[in-house]
């Protein structure tokens, strides 16, 4: 009996461990692939990049919206904080910056309504205790956000609404900032 039960138990333990381990690995793997693709499009750490308008050629991330133009930044706070700038936008139209950690979690998001339509500088800083508030001027920022992982992505979404032309929306989203301090 033991000759059957012990291997059976080992198999079951292996099954559960393999299942849980793979579930733990996959989000980081999927995000890593997305960041690799972002790099192939010219993305650099802590530098804003701007994606072309979305059409059938956009095949970097599933379900891209053709009603939005996107900009992005691969953040890296391992050497210090990063300043993210949300461009000013009055009225009903929508612009947002959203923050994704290395395991795909959307750990923060802000849109133009959050700041009354004014431009906003957001301080993104690392998880190490000495990075909690590394900039003595952090209180001058509209928001201070703790990044759960030292690398990840910041994505700007500018909705093409209210009759805005692509050219005007493109000029607007290029005010998106991502800069290591």
């Amino acid at each position, binding site marked *: 009996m033991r000759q059957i039960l012990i291997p059976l138990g080992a198999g079951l333990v292996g099954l559960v461990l393999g299942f*849980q381990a793979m579930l733990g690995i996959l*989000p980081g793997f999927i995000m890593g692939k997305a960041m690799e693709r972002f790099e192939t499009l010219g993305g650099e750490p802590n530098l804003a990049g701007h994606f072309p308008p979305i059409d059938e050629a956009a095949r970097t991330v599933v379900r891209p919206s053709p009603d939005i133009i996107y900009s992005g930044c691969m953040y890296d706070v391992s050497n210090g904080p990063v300043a993210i700038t949300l461009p000013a936008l009055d009225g009903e139209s929508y612009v*947002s910056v959203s923050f994704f950690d290395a395991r795909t979690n959307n750990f923060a998001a802000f849109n133009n309504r959050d700041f009354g339509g004014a431009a906003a500088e957001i301080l993104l800083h690392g998880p190490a205790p000495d990075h909690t508030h590394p900039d003595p001027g952090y209180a001058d920022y509209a928001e201070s956000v703790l990044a759960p992982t030292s690398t990840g992505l910041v994505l700007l979404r500018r909705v093409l609404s209210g009759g805005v032309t692509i050219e005007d929306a493109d000029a607007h989203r290029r005010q998106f900032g991502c800069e290591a301090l």
Partner: protein
Amino acid sequence: MIIRSLIAGVGGLVLGAAGAVFLVFGPADFGGVSVGPWRTNIHIGSPDAPGLVRAVVARRGLLALNRSETIYFSADADSEGRALEAGCDYRVLFTDRPDARWWSLTLYAEDDFLPVGGPGAYSVSADDISDGEAGFVVSVSQRPAIGHWLSPENAGNFNLTLRLYNPAVAIVEDPSRAVLPVVERLACGGAS
């Protein structure tokens, strides 16, 4: 017995890992809320979901916003549960405007990207609806339609995604309370 146990343990590890990959990359969904044919995952963007749900969301909702910012409802079947097919015509019947700051309805091919080689009629948004239109219809057909129109040309078994930007608080709290359109299949037989 030690060798047999080792083999069984390693075999279990491999099988468990393969099972996880199958579930995450397979067609099944986990952690979702349904409203008619529309489905959303309340865990999109959330770090609090269980492991399997988080992994599925990482694949299907990559870089999607959390639900206070945007809720994504997706339909891959009509209101009678039949898979959406490029060779069929449909009507998407909105009885009212979606209750959100802004919204859009987008058609994706079965690979979850915009259809390639079609006329580019991918999306209808709040901007396309005039002030007088409380209820309205979006036609989905390969032949151009009068009014609001999406083309499923080259889309195979396509899906529709309704994005609600800054949705009403009641929908954020309980997405199942959203009033969403009926997806009605008309005729089939066109080329896909």
